[in-house]
C-alpha cells in the first residue's frame, strides 16, 4: 500500500537531485518536462539497487537473483496496469518508448488488418511519432491518410468527426498535444469512431504523466506512452491494448520469450518505471493535474501581459494541459531559448516534431514552456523576466 502524500512543488523538488543544479551560474529552471521529465532519487536508486543487488536476466534463471529480477520486473508491469486501470497486466506490453509502441501497432495489427483503399484518420496536432508510422504503413498497403482539422483555439473540429470517419479503419489521435497543450475528449471521440467501425489508438505520451488515465473508461483500443516523461527512465515505454486484440495480432519482433517483447528486456528501466508509478501514485494523479492547471492558468495570465506575444492553444485550463507554446513578434524562438538559457531557464524552441501543426499555425517554430510537479509559479515569473530581458537585447 502506497502512503499518500500532499503535493507541493517545494516538497517534490527535494526528491529530485537535479534541482540542486546550477546552469550558467543560476539555479536550474526546468520548463521542458514535455520533452522529458526529471527523475526523483527513488527511481535512480531503485535502478541502481537492481544493478547492485539482483542483476540477472528475468524469465529464465531458476536461481534466486533471476527470480528476484523477474518478480521486480513483473511487479512493475502490474503497477503500470493498475496505474492506467488496465483489466490485466497481460495487456501491458513494454516497449522502448511511445514511438516504438505505435510502431508495434503499425507492424503487427496494421499490416495484418489495414486494407488497400482503407483510410487512417489522424489529427493536425499529431507528433511525428503518431504520423510517420501511419504514412509509412499507408504507402506500404495502399491506404490513405486524412486529418481532422483544428480551429484557431487549437481544438479539434469535432463537428467534422462523423463525416471524416467514413471508411476509416483506424483513428490515431493524441490525448494531449505536446505543442498546444490541448487535451482532447478521447472518450467521446472513441465512441464516435467505434460507431463508424474504426479502432482507436491514442498517443498518451503527454497524458499519462500528467492526469488520471483509465484506459477502460476511455474505451479505446490501443494506448501508448513513455516512461521517461513520467519520472521514469528512458528506454521503457508501454503499449496497452485490449487482451482480445493482442491475442489476435501477429508477433512484432521474432526472438526469445514473448510475442511482442522478444529478447532480454530493459529490466532496470522497467523496474525504474514501476518506482516512478509508485512515486506519482503517492500524490495522486488528480493532484498532479490540478497542480499543473494552477501553473497553466498563471502562465497564460502572465505571458498574456508580454508585449508582442502570441500564445497558442486553448485559453481554458480545463482543456489545456501543462504545456504552453508562444511566439514573440521580433525574436525567433531559438534566439529566445538561447537567451533565457543564460538565466538558467530551459525551454524548448522548434517545431516540437509537429510540422503539420506548425503549418496550420503558420509558423516555423514556437517556444514551449512545460510544467510538472516540481515547478513553482515563481519559475513562470522568471521566464517572463527572461523574455523581457531578451526583448531588451532585440529592441
Amino acid at each position, binding site marked *: 500500500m502506497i502512503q499518500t502524500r500532499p503535493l507541493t512543488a517545494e516538497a517534490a523538488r527535494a526528491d529530485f537531485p537535479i534541482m540542486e543544479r546550477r546552469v550558467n551560474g543560476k539555479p536550474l529552471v526546468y520548463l521542458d518536462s514535455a520533452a522529458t521529465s526529471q527523475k526523483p532519487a527513488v527511481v535512480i536508486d531503485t535502478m541502481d539497487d537492481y544493478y547492485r543487488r539482483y542483476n540477472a536476466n528475468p524469465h529464465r534463471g531458476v536461481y534466486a537473483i533471476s527470480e528476484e529480477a523477474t518478480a521486480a520486473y513483473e511487479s512493475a508491469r502490474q503497477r503500470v496496469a493498475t496505474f492506467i486501470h488496465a483489466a490485466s497486466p497481460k495487456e501491458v506490453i513494454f516497449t522502448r518508448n511511445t514511438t516504438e509502441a505505435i510502431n508495434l501497432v503499425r507492424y503487427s495489427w496494421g499490416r495484418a488488418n489495414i486494407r488497400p483503399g482503407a483510410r487512417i484518420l489522424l489529427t493536425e496536432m499529431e507528433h511525428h511519432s503518431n504520423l510517420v508510422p501511419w504514412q509509412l504503413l499507408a504507402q506500404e498497403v495502399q491506404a490513405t491518410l486524412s486529418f481532422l482539422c483544428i480551429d484557431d483555439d487549437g481544438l479539434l473540429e469535432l463537428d467534422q468527426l462523423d463525416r471524416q470517419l467514413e471508411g476509416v479503419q483506424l483513428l490515431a489521435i493524441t490525448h494531449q498535444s505536446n505543442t498546444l497543450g490541448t487535451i482532447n475528449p478521447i472518450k467521446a471521440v472513441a465512441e464516435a469512431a467505434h460507431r463508424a467501425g474504426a479502432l482507436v489508438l491514442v498517443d498518451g505520451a503527454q497524458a499519462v504523466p500528467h492526469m488520471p488515465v483509465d484506459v477502460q473508461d476511455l474505451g479505446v483500443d490501443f494506448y501508448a506512452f513513455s516512461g521517461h516523461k513520467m519520472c521514469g527512465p528512458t528506454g521503457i515505454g508501454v503499449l496497452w491494448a485490449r487482451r482480445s486484440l493482442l491475442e489476435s495480432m501477429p508477433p512484432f519482433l521474432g526472438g526469445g520469450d514473448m510475442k511482442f517483447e522478444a529478447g532480454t528486456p530493459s529490466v532496470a528501466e522497467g523496474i525504474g518505471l514501476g518506482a516512478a508509478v509508485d512515486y506519482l501514485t503517492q500524490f495522486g494523479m488528480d493532484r498532479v493535474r490540478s497542480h499543473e492547471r494552477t501553473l497553466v492558468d498563471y502562465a497564460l495570465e502572465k505571458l498574456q501581459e508580454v508585449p508582442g506575444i502570441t500564445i497558442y492553444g486553448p485559453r481554458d485550463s480545463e482543456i489545456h494541459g501543462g504545456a504552453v507554446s508562444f511566439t514573440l513578434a521580433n525574436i525567433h*524562438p*531559438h*534566439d529566445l531559448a*538561447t537567451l533565457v538559457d543564460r538565466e538558467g531557464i530551459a525551454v524548448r524552441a*522548434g517545431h516540437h516534431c509537429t510540422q503539420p501543426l506548425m503549418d496550420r499555425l503558420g509558423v*516555423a*517554430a514556437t517556444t514551449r514552456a512545460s510544467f510538472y510537479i516540481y515547478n513553482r509559479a515563481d519559475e513562470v515569473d522568471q521566464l517572463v523576466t527572461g523574455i523581457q530581458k531578451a526583448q531588451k537585447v*532585440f529592441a
Partner: protein
Amino acid sequence: MSDDLYREQILEHYKNPHHFGELPDADITQEGDNPLCGDVITFYLKLDDGRLGDVRFRGRGCAISQASASMLTDLIVGKPLQELKTFPTKDLLEELGIQISPARMKCATLSVNTLRVALNGDAPEED
C-alpha cells in the same frame, strides 16, 4: 571569442542585413534551409568574369542564421569563384566572433553551406 552570443555586431546585421533582397538577373539562385528549425536563406548570385560580381539574399529565421548570411555576403562579394567554392566555414565563424554551441551550429553555417551548394551544385561539405 566573445561569450556574448548576441553581441552588437550580430544584432546589427540581423536588424539591418547587408545585401538583403533579390537580383532579378541572378545567374544562380539557391535556397537552403534547416528543416529542424525552419531557418531559410535564398542566395542570388551574379557572376562576373570568374568572380562573384554581386550578391543578395533573402531569408527568415533566428538572428544567428540571418546575421551569418549578412556577414557572409560582405566576405564573398567580388571574390574569385574558385576561392568561394571552398570557402572555409571557420572564416565565417571567426567573423561571427562568438562561441556557437553544437545545437546552434546549423544556424551559424546555413549560409556558407548554401553558398557551397550554389557554387558546387552538390551537398555541403561537412566540417
